[in-house]
């Protein structure tokens, strides 16, 4: 049993289960069988059954998580290839980002409040749409619970990746640029990765969305929350 705590084993099952999950989604075509979501769920179950805690899993998992930062850096390439097109429509992009950022913060705060969340929880949700390090810093500045923020950020990302394009289609957002931007704005790097799967162009605008919304949220959230006087 002790061997099951081996970090190489934990890395191997992460790769293996992800691969099987991808095959499974290809076979069935069910969106709820999102390979990321399925892998996370299956590994949590396996860890619970084997009695392995998260810090132990993390000994192996950290080598996979490590690549998250360089992967975000790599989004600079699609961003570069679309730079000319982006410059041409700087104004609509910026306006949509400001709208997305403000709507993201206000809606989550008001809805959570209406549903009876405590103040600490509300503050922890405000920055849910942006990438984890920025979101956690913003929550810290607001006086929320950074650990809750990190959990909600992951969920928001998965949610966007799984239903994002369906929602955009239902909401009649048709232009590829608008769709890409929305994915990155609402669901940060996970949304961007779903956009990358469609094409480089979608990926470029999603990278832009996650970047601008990250910057705006860090800059605006503290003032916006102050104004609201919760």
């Amino acid at each position, binding site marked *: 049993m002790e061997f099951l705590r081996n970090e190489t084993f934990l890395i191997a099952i992460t790769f293996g289960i992800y691969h099987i999950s991808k095959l499974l989604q290809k076979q069935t075509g069910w969106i709820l069988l999102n390979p*990321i979501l399925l892998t996370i769920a299956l590994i949590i179950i396996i860890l619970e059954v084997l009695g392995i805690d998260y810090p132990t899993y993390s000994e192996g998992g950290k080598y996979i998580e490590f690549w998250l930062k360089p*992967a975000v850096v790599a989004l600079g390439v699609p961003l570069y290839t679309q730079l000319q097109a982006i410059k041409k429509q700087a104004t609509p992009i910026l306006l949509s980002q400001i709208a997305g950022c403000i709507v993201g913060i206000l809606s989550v705060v008001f809805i959570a409040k209406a549903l009876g969340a405590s103040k600490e929880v509300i503050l922890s949700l405000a920055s849910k749409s942006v990438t*984890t390090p920025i979101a956690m810093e913003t929550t810290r500045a607001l006086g929320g619970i950074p650990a809750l923020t990190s959990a909600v950020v992951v969920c928001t990302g998965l949610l966007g990746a799984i239903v994002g394009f369906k929602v955009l289609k239902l*909401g009649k957002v048709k232009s590829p640029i608008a769709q890409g931007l929305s994915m990155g704005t609402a669901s940060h790097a996970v949304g961007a990765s779903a956009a990358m799967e469609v094409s480089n162009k979608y990926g470029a605008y999603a990278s832009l969305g996650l970047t601008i919304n990250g910057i705006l949220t860090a800059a605006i959230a503290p003032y916006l929350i102050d104004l609201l006087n919760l």
Partner: protein
Amino acid sequence: MKNMILQCAIIFGCLTFGELIVHLTGIKLSSSIIGMLTLTLLLQLGIVKLDWVKGIAEFLSANLAFFFIPPGIGLMLHFDLIKAQFVPIVGATILSTILVLVVTGWVHQLTRKNNGVSKK
């Protein structure tokens, strides 16, 4: 993938630059986003050629979601916290994410039509 070493050196160079900026200025941004913008700038200025990073950039961005699995599994640490206020947390997150998606898309589509920016 040709010249893996150079490709890694550029990506990690940009990331390190991002870490340095965060370390020196205490700016509330993630080092990876600063690194992304640095890479875009270096490509734009022609200091880094697209060929030098193309292979690894495609590999990394194509597998970005996979790297999110370990922090996703970290959710298990916070089950209690989420369970305690499950409805407001989950309800607000879902509704707000849908709103952000649609509003961002709509504002872009509308402003793009109204200010006469060329379509192609």
